[in-house]
């Protein structure tokens, strides 16, 4: 079923006005379980017979070395870093997201424009400017947010990796409190955005099976929806 290509900036032109797949944003705090959720949903949807792909905002591993190098260079300022991320997301949108949507895939975006926006604004950038920079980005057909509070997100992050990422913390406060406060700011920004989007909260604790079942059915019903004139 065809859907309009909606960009954040409504006048943005793409080569094809419609796609047959479904664009799902999986957004939330760092450490909230986004990637785990994306993988579980992918496996479930594929087992139901729906072709599904998980993408992150950054292009595939062929650029990994360069991206890692520049992303972790502490000298890069907030604005320059955000513009770099936006550029990478545009490459992913053109080369991965749109082709898969055109081919009828469910694209699970492990961070859509929403996460990039929330992080940049939490770092102190002007919200209107950040929105403008992401004007090319696709507006998800639905957004799924794994429920998590900042403290439990920090604990989850620490159990999954050696150290908290300084880029996911307040500037110059790369410790537990800095991470929690930064994530709290992101949570507040997401709270504001929830009013505008087709947003679904998912509680993966203590038993995720029922929640996943519910959300998979939401995705399938959205896939059946069509914006195109018959």
């Amino acid at each position, binding site marked *: 079923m065809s859907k309009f290509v909606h960009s954040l900036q409504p006048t943005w032109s793409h080569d094809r006005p419609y796609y047959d797949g479904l664009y799902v944003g999986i957004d939330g705090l760092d450490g909230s379980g986004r990637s785990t959720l994306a993988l579980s949903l992918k496996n479930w949807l594929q087992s139901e017979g729906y072709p599904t792909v998980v993408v992150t905002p950054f292009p595939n591993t062929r650029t990994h070395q360069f991206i890692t190098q520049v992303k972790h260079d502490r000298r890069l300022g907030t604005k320059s870093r955000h513009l770099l991320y936006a550029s990478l997301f545009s490459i992913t949108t053109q080369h991965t997201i749109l082709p898969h949507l055109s081919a009828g895939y469910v694209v699970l975006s492990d961070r859509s424009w929403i996460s990039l926006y929330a992080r940049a604004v939490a770092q102190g950038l002007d919200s209107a400017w950040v929105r403008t920079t992401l*004007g090319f980005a696709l507006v998800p057909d639905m957004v799924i947010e794994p429920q998590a509070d900042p403290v439990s997100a920090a604990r989850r992050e620490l159990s999954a990796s050696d150290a908290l990422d300084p880029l996911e913390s307040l500037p110059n406060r790369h410790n537990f409190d800095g991470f929690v406060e930064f994530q709290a700011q992101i949570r507040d920004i997401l709270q504001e955005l929830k009013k505008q989007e087709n947003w679904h909260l998912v509680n993966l604790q203590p038993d995720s099976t029922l929640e996943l079942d519910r959300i998979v059915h939401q995705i399938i019903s959205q896939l059946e929806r069509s914006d195109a004139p018959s």
Partner: protein
Amino acid sequence: MSDEHHKYPGCLVVVEGTDGSGKSTAINLLEDWLKTKGYPVYRTAWNSSPLVKPFMRHTKKKQWLDKAAFSLLHASDFYDRLDRLIIPRLQAGFIVLADRWVYTAWVRDHVRGLDLTWVKALYHDVPRPDLAIYFSTPPDIAVARLKHASRKLKYYESGQDISGLQDPWSSFLWFQEQMREAYLALADQGYLQLLDATLPIFEQQKIVRNWMAPLLSRLSLLPQFLESRQS
């Protein structure tokens, strides 16, 4: 970009123009002249951030950049240089000579098909130069100069990503004609001072140095600045 000229103690001079217009030669001569006179000078060039450039080079080589990615990556490069390298020097009283400024993005990205309002919004808070010169050269002359210098054209530089032309030189000529129109429109709007870049180089220098004279006299704090450096 701000409507008003910046208020930093230093001085910002920008040269713009197509490849082969002679702006790099002019800026070299200008830099030598200013240094000889004892001014602290800093040179910066488009697309030269040491942090972003390696990635930029990689993506260009792979021809991965769509028009938005191209524009955003150049903005990332620009803001890295602006925040870390340029503004601190303007604050410290340097003369910053910039080989291209946001006008390059406005012109190139717009010719590539992006909405000019969007491109301008990316650079919304960039300081306006004290002097911005457009080295006006007919594209065929620029092409002849580049061929004479045995320059090889790159994919994005020649505009092949949008022209659909196989021959880089034909594409470059078409691309430069589009850009020239856009530059001349900016000159009409008062953003750029037009300089006839077909004049002999020494004549061009005379004109540019004349334009710079009031800016140099404004740098009244310079002697104190130099004394503090020496002490």
